């Protein structure tokens, strides 16, 4: 069978009995068996759970027909969870050897919400260990490869989630975005990826990286799919006190798109920049007002981020003592050690003011930059990263070089605003291109509306890599 590439096609097929949910699972597991030895997007495949949930879905469709899809909006949708999301009774590793045999006693809220919406879990996906990385190469279970070109990285840290979609091994996937970890892999794998507003989605049961920056996001092949997933996962659960109940911004009839000049700088890949300028031109032609704006502090976001994030990492990872669960601290690999040490250093006596306090003040100024710009425009459009996907091994020996891949994504995390990665074609060599839309807090609906406008204007068709 041909596996459909969107939620809508999947559910139409199920309704029309073109295939059953069990047959869908057969198809995805076949693709995983065929290609994942090479791509390495899954750490654990949960075949038994998948078939049990698929049988339940088929039963519901048989008993209730189309009504089943009203009660379970994501019925029959296969999902792969980044291995940072706790799954009751199913090993959860965070991509780290330290947790190689950890089996959680409870599930993350997002995992439960998706299950309650009718999703079928296919497995747990590979990621940079503890979500530390921009390429997927920091996983203790080996790097994930980019399905569009296996010599290249899929982007990190939600590397396996993105690669699994690009390789047609799942329909949707979850991810987390602390500095770039949904948007970068989405962009490198030609997918739509959402980093929501900080506090829009509960993080209960998601292994913490940097608590003032962590957000739970998701991947799909179309804006519609991502919007549907977001609708299912957003909102509070009484278990994460950073979740805010807010009023969602409604998209305006006439929108103003800002081009922040600091995101179009020397050193940005020419092919990538050209594709984004072409996208902006499409917006202009479709009645969106375009305005150049300035976010002068952009350049400093990466330094502020790589002080604040490691500081919070060193604190969050201090709980791994090997006593209650997990292996001993000597099983941390290099990148975790670097970040723990960097964080411990910037928080230590004598350096706190110079690094951590300074970074938190720069963060305030970065937020003010965004607030000012969002008085002039509704949404910002920018590259996700300065380059298309880079080669495996290209940056792994030089941590600073790797950190700089996040230069255009970390500002949104520092400010707590949402960012949506949108695919916009391929390079001549067949590497994925994409841009991101950023808006004020709780403006997700506006981002979705603008991204859909682009899909429609370009007659976008979701694709998967031919493996």
């Amino acid at each position, binding site marked *: 069978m041909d596996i459909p590439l969107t939620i809508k096609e999947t559910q139409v097929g199920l309704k029309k009995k073109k295939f059953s949910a069990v047959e869908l699972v057969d198809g995805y597991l076949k693709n995983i068996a065929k290609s994942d030895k090479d791509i390495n997007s899954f750490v654990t495949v949960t075949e038994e759970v998948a078939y049990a949930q698929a049988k339940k879905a088929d039963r519901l469709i048989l008993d209730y027909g189309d009504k089943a899809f009203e009660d379970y909006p994501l019925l029959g949708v296969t999902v792969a969870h980044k291995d940072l999301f706790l799954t009751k009774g199913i090993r959860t590793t965070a991509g780290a050897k330290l947790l190689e045999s950890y089996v959680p006693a409870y599930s993350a809220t997002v995992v439960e919400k998706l299950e309650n919406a009718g999703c079928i879990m296919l497995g747990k996906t590979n990621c940079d260990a503890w979500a530390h990385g921009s390429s997927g190469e920091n996983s203790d279970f080996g790097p994930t490869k980019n399905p569009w070109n296996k010599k290249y990285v899929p982007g990190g840290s939600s590397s396996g989630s993105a690669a699994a979609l690009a390789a047609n091994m799942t329909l949707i996937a979850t991810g987390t975005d602390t500095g770039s970890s949904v948007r970068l892999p989405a962009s490198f794998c030609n997918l739509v990826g959402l980093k929501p507003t900080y506090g829009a989605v509960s993080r209960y049961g998601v292994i913490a990286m940097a608590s003032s920056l962590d957000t739970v996001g998701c991947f799909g092949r179309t804006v519609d799919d991502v919007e549907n997933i977001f609708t299912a996962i957003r909102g509070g659960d009484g278990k994460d006190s950073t979740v805010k109940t807010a009023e969602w911004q409604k998209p305006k009839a006439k929108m103003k798109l800002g081009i922040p000049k600091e995101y179009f700088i020397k050193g940005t890949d020419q092919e990538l920049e050209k594709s984004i300028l072409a996208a902006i031109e499409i917006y202009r032609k479709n009645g969106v007002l375009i305005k150049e704006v300035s976010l002068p502090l952009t350049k400093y976001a990466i*330094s*502020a981020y790589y002080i604040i994030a490691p500081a919070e990492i060193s604190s969050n990872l201090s709980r791994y003592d090997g006593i209650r669960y997990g292996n001993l601290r000597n099983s941390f690999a290099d990148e975790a050690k670097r970040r723990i*040490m960097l964080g411990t250093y910037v928080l230590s006596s004598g350096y706190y003011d110079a*690094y951590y306090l300074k970074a938190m003040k720069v963060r305030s*100024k970065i937020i003010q930059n965004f607030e000012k710009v969002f008085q002039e425009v509704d949404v910002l459009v920018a590259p996700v990263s300065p380059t298309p996907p880079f080669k495996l091994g290209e940056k792994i020996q030089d941590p600073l070089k790797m950190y700089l891949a996040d230069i255009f994504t970390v500002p949104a995390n520092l400010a707590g605003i949402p960012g949506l990665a949108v695919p916009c074609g391929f390079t001549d060599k067949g590497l994925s291109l994409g841009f991101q839309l950023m808006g004020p807090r709780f403006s997700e609906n506006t981002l979705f509306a603008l991204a859909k406008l682009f899909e429609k204007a370009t007659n976008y068709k979701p694709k998967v890599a031919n493996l």
Partner: protein
Amino acid sequence: MAKLTKTEIAHVARLAKLKITSAETDKFQKQLSKVLDYFNELDEVDTSDQEPTSQTTGLKNVFRTDEIRTSGCLSQEETLSGTDRTKNGYFVVDAVLENKDL
């Protein structure tokens, strides 16, 4: 360069309960010094009139009623399920204090 000394690396590793080898000390000294050097760019930003930001929700003092929620509680068995080192329903931990004859 070499802003971080080997002593500082060792000190920070000890604070973070990480055991690192001397080869690692050399490697991390080089890599982390380079990262710290990069941070110097923040000196260019005037933050004299700024308050620090530690979170972006604007939420303050999130309370809930003081009641027992059994749904969020793990049983003793579940709590202990992550390790083999248990005794009489407790975790076994290494001794912190050494036994010295006085």
